[in-house]
C-alpha cells in the first residue's frame, strides 16, 4: 500500500493539488480531500465503462482490432480527408495538445477545443477589451467581495469556495465558514420556534410567498470582511450560501451589467427596475462594489451561453475596468475542463489562436463562426473528424452530431462515452492525471504538474504516444501517395 500526497485532481479548472490517493496493487482504493466528483473519477477510472482495446465499426458493429490496424485506419481517414475537424483536447495534458497541433497542420484540418461551447465567447470578449485578472492566490488572500455571475461552483467547481474564495482563510481575509454555519443554525432555530408556536397554516404560506418576492440586500453586504454575491437566473446551490442572491431575468444579464456600470459612474437611471431587479437594490449592491477593498467577478456559462454571448463578457470586463477607477476589481472565467486553459495556451503559442484554428489553407486562420467546429458541423462542411479527450456526443446540439456521424469519426477516450458509441474507429487511452503524468493549466492560467499514481492497463497508450503514432502513419501514407504521384 502506498499513499501519494499532493496529487493534482484532473477534473475541473480548479486543479486542486492537495489530493491524497491510496494505492494498493496498482489500484486506487481511497481518495482524501477531494470533492464528490473527484471521488467519482478516481473510483470510476477502473470501472466497466472503460474501453479496453481499439475498436473499428464493421457492418454497424464494433469489432476489436489490433492497435496497429486501428492506427493505420485512423491515419488513412485523416490523410484522405479534405477538411477534417480535430476537436476536444481539454481533458488531456499539454504534451498531447502539442502533438495535436502538429497533426492538424499536417492534415490541413480544423483544430478546435471545448472552449467553443464553454468560454470561447470569453476569449473573444477578452480579445475585444483585454482582461484585468490575477492568480487565484491573490484572490484567496485579499478578496473581500466575491461575485459569482451565471455560474454555480458548488455544482461545477465544488471546492472553489473552499480553496480560493469565501470559505478559505487568506493572509488578509478570514474564512466566512463559521458565520455561514451560524446562519444555518439560526435558520434551523427559527424553523423550530415556528413549529413550536404552531403558526396557523395560512400564515405559514405567507412566509413561503415572501421568499418569492425580491429580497432587499442585507445589511451584512456593507460589512467588513468577505462578502459573497451570486447573480443567476435561478437559485443555485451557491446562491444558498451567498450573502445576497440577485435573481436576474433570463437573457438580461447584459442590461443589468450596463445598469451597474451607469450607477458606478454615478449616473441616474430613470426606470424602477432592470432585468427584474429593483433599481434601489442595485444601488445598494453598487455601494458594496465601490466600497470593497478588493473585488472579483467569477463568471460562467450563464453569460457565455445566453443572449449576448461574447458581448456579455465584453461588458462584464468593461464593468470591471470601470470599478477599477473607484477600487480594486478583477474578473476571471470559471473554466470547466481541467486543461481547457492549457489547450487555449498551447494552441495560441503554437498557432497564434486559442481555439477554432483552421489549417486548411496551409497556414493558421481564425474567424469565429467560420472556422469554429460547431459552425462547420452545423453547415455540414467537414468530411472526417478526430475527437479526443472530450465528448461532443453529450455536449453538442443534435444537428451538429448528425453531421458529425455522416463522415468517418475517430474517437480517443478512456471511457465509452456517447461520442465513442457513435465512432467508427475508437481508441482506448490512459487517464491523464491518474495513469499518465504531464502539465495542465489551472483556470487562472497557472501551469501545474499532473501525477501518475498507477500504471495504465496493458496495451493502453497515452494520448501523446497514440497521437505521435497516428502522425507518423499519416506522414508515411502521404509520402507513399507523393511517390506514386511522381511515378505517374
Amino acid at each position: 500500500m502506498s499513499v501519494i500526497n499532493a496529487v493534482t485532481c484532473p477534473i475541473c479548472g480548479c486543479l486542486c493539488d492537495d489530493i491524497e490517493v491510496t494505492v494498493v496493487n496498482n489500484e486506487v482504493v481511497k481518495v482524501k480531500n477531494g470533492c464528490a466528483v473527484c471521488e467519482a473519477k478516481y473510483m470510476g477510472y477502473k470501472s466497466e465503462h472503460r474501453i479496453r482495446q481499439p475498436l473499428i465499426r464493421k457492418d454497424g458493429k464494433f469489432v476489436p482490432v489490433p492497435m496497429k490496424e486501428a492506427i493505420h485506419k485512423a491515419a488513412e481517414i485523416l490523410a484522405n480527408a479534405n477538411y477534417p475537424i480535430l476537436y476536444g483536447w481539454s481533458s488531456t495534458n499539454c504534451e498531447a495538445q502539442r502533438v495535436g497541433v502538429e497533426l492538424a497542420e499536417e492534415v490541413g484540418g480544423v483544430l478546435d477545443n471545448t472552449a467553443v461551447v464553454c468560454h470561447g465567447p470569453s476569449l473573444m470578449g477578452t480579445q475585444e477589451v483585454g482582461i484585468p485578472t490575477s492568480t487565484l492566490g491573490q484572490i484567496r488572500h485579499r478578496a473581500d467581495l466575491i461575485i459569482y455571475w451565471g455560474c454555480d461552483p458548488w455544482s461545477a467547481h465544488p471546492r472553489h469556495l473552499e480553496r480560493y474564495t469565501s470559505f478559505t482563510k487568506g493572509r488578509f481575509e478570514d474564512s466566512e465558514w463559521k458565520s455561514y454555519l451560524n446562519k444555518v443554525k439560526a435558520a434551523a432555530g427559527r424553523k423550530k420556534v415556528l413549529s413550536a408556536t404552531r403558526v396557523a397554516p395560512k400564515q405559514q404560506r405567507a412566509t413561503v410567498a415572501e421568499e418569492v418576492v425580491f429580497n432587499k440586500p442585507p445589511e451584512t453586504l456593507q460589512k467588513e470582511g468577505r462578502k459573497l454575491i451570486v447573480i443567476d437566473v435561478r437559485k443555485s446551490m451557491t446562491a444558498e450560501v451567498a450573502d445576497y442572491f440577485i435573481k436576474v431575468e433570463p437573457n438580461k444579464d447584459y442590461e443589468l451589467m450596463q445598469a451597474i456600470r451607469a450607477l458606478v459612474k454615478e449616473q441616474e437611471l430613470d426606470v424602477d427596475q432592470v432585468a427584474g431587479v429593483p433599481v434601489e437594490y442595485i444601488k445598494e449592491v453598487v455601494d458594496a462594489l465601490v466600497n470593497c477593498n478588493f473585488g472579483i467577478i467569477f463568471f460562467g456559462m450563464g453569460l457565455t451561453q445566453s443572449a449576448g454571448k461574447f458581448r456579455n463578457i465584453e461588458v462584464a470586463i468593461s464593468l470591471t475596468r470601470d470599478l477599477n477607477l473607484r477600487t480594486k476589481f478583477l474578473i476571471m472565467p470559471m473554466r470547466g475542463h481541467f486543461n481547457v486553459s492549457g489547450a487555449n495556451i498551447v494552441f495560441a503559442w503554437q498557432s497564434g489562436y486559442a481555439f477554432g484554428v483552421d489549417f486548411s489553407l496551409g497556414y493558421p486562420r481564425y474567424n469565429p463562426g467560420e472556422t469554429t467546429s460547431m459552425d462547420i458541423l452545423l453547415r455540414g462542411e467537414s468530411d472526417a473528424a478526430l475527437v479526443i479527450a472530450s465528448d461532443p456526443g453529450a455536449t453538442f446540439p443534435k444537428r451538429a452530431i448528425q453531421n458529425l456521424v455522416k463522415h468517418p469519426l475517430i474517437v480517443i477516450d478512456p471511457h465509452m462515452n456517447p461520442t465513442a458509441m457513435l465512432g467508427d474507429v475508437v481508441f482506448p487511452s490512459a487517464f491523464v492525471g491518474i495513469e499518465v503524468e504531464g502539465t495542465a493549466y489551472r483556470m487562472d492560467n497557472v501551469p501545474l504538474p499532473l501525477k501518475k499514481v498507477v500504471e495504465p492497463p496493458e496495451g493502453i497508450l497515452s494520448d501523446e504516444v497514440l497521437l505521435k503514432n497516428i502522425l507518423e502513419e499519416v506522414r508515411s501514407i502521404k509520402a507513399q501517395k507523393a511517390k506514386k504521384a511522381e511515378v505517374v
Partner: protein
Amino acid sequence: MMQQKLHVTLLTGRTIEQGVGKEYGKSSHQYYDACSMVYMDAGDMQKLGVKHGSNVLVTTPNGSVVLKAVKHPRGSMSGMIYIPYGPWANSIVSNTTNSIGMPSFKGTPATVEAAPDQPILSMKELLKKEFGR
C-alpha cells in the same frame, strides 16, 4: 386551472449529480438518472397537473424529449425549466450560434406537457433514435 401545455424558457447547465455521473462513466445509471430529468417550478408543475417524478414531454423547434419532472429544490423558477447537460438536453437545444461558434444553450423558448405514458429513452435508445447508431 389545469393547463395542457406550458410555455417556458429552457435552461441547460451543470448539476453536481451530473458531474459525478459523467466522471464515473456516461453509461452508468448515475449519469442516466442525473441527465434524463428536468427541474421545474412547483407552481408550474401544479398548473400542468404533473407530480414530482412523473414524465413530461419537452418540445422546442429542434425536437422533443421525454424527461422526468423534478421539483426545483431552491426558490421559485416560475416560467423556466432546467435540464442538466447531456444527450437528452442536446436533442432539443438551439442550433443558433450567432456566428460565433456557441449555440444558445440557455434562454430559448420551449413547451412542457404531461406525458405519463411515454417512456424516457435510455442513452442507447436515444442515440439510435437521433443518429441511427
